[in-house]
């Protein structure tokens, strides 16, 4: 499926990819900081603010669509699911907790679950906050610390060696277990796992954690 999407041998997909190239050069689509996105989402949650929703749609719907195309969804399905993801955001905005995730991360989890449901036709067993833990959860830090953490993660992701960032990206965009990723890349499973370990250790260091 991934190869099919990348080759883009169908006219509609080819056109989509050409348009993607143009959109990439439009600066106004790129300009939204994580803190700005969180603030807009807060306005949707508290005031059902349609203008704030429209801004979030303008920024995130094309990215969710790109995510779904990368995972092999045909163009029309990617378009529909991207719209559904943003409608979910409207429906669930009041459940968003900026201490737990940024708006982008929250939307990623929504898009991920929609995709598993619609494309893979499987359930996604999902932990509910407050499920069962015998001991109380640690006090959450504030949203600013969270977006700061994500900014550092994002920066260090760009500095990973190519072979490491490749296995990390495929973990999100290939929809296959690591054993199949290994087959696709023509390397042993142990090598995939060791590259992942190295990559994740680096990313954790960027978050200021010991391994």
């Amino acid at each position, binding site marked *: 499926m991934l190869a099919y999407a990348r080759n883009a041998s169908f006219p509609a997909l080819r056109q989509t990819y050409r348009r993607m190239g143009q959109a990439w050069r439009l600066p106004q689509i790129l300009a939204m900081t994580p803190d700005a996105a969180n603030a807009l989402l807060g306005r949707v949650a508290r005031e059902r603010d349609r203008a704030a929703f429209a801004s979030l749609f303008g920024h995130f719907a094309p990215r969710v669509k790109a995510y779904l195309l990368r995972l092999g969804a045909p163009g029309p399905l990617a378009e529909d699911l991207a719209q559904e993801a943003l409608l979910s955001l409207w429906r669930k905005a009041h459940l968003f907790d900026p201490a737990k995730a940024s708006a982008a991360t929250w939307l990623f989890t929504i898009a991920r679950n929609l995709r598993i449901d619609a494309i893979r036709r499987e359930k996604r067993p999902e932990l509910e906050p407050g499920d069962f833990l015998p001991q109380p959860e640690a006090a959450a830090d504030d949203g600013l610390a969270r977006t700061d953490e994500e900014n550092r*993660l994002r920066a260090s992701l760009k500095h990973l060696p190519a072979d490491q960032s490749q296995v990390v990206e495929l973990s999100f965009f290939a929809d296959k277990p690591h054993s199949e990723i290994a087959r696709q890349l023509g390397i042993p499973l142990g090598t995939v796992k060791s590259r992942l370990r190295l990559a994740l250790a680096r990313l954790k260091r960027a978050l200021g954690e010991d391994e």
Partner: protein
Amino acid sequence: MIHHHPDEALLLAYAGGAADEAVSLIVATHMAYCQSCRARAAQWEALGGSLLQDLPPAPMSGDALQSVLTRLDEIKPEERRVRPASRDATPQVLRNYIGGDLRDMRWRRMGPNLSYVPLFRRGAVTARLLRGVPGAETGAHRHGGQEYTLVLKGGFSDVTGSYAPGDLQMMEGDMRHNPVADPGEDCINLAVTTGPLKFESLLRKVVAPLFGF
């Protein structure tokens, strides 16, 4: 206190969405017991958020925003679900999946000491609940794929150590073990396999496939 956790690659597969339904179920149920794995999975979800931010946008069709805006008024905010507490401390994520508490399950016998409830099968991947009376043995085996076992009640022990509620054991390939249920109460596990178990005893070899192992 949890001593046995999913490895980083498994948490990443769960957070990224590559893990299949059975593997997602066992990772999510482990996280119901484990604060540190919740935090790690949240980090790898943040990685997904970062990758999403950095994807070259694929433009939506011209009327997409307009058509979504006209649908907003029909949509009511989703209510927080409040559910009655489990009567036997079954984690909610597992209750959602099996449609009740562990004590509500219809257990199928598999010999005098073991019983099970099939939950999921797709190709070689299976998920099931397993229950053993104290002292019950699975039988020595190796693995045709991965085997993940999460303790829900009681505990079991084998050459690799002892496992209590919340602990997740990861075994694969030629790693050989013979889990034995600890004394005390029945041991109940959630077990996921991605390939058949390779038993050593002739009886188990013959019988296991009859039960879908």
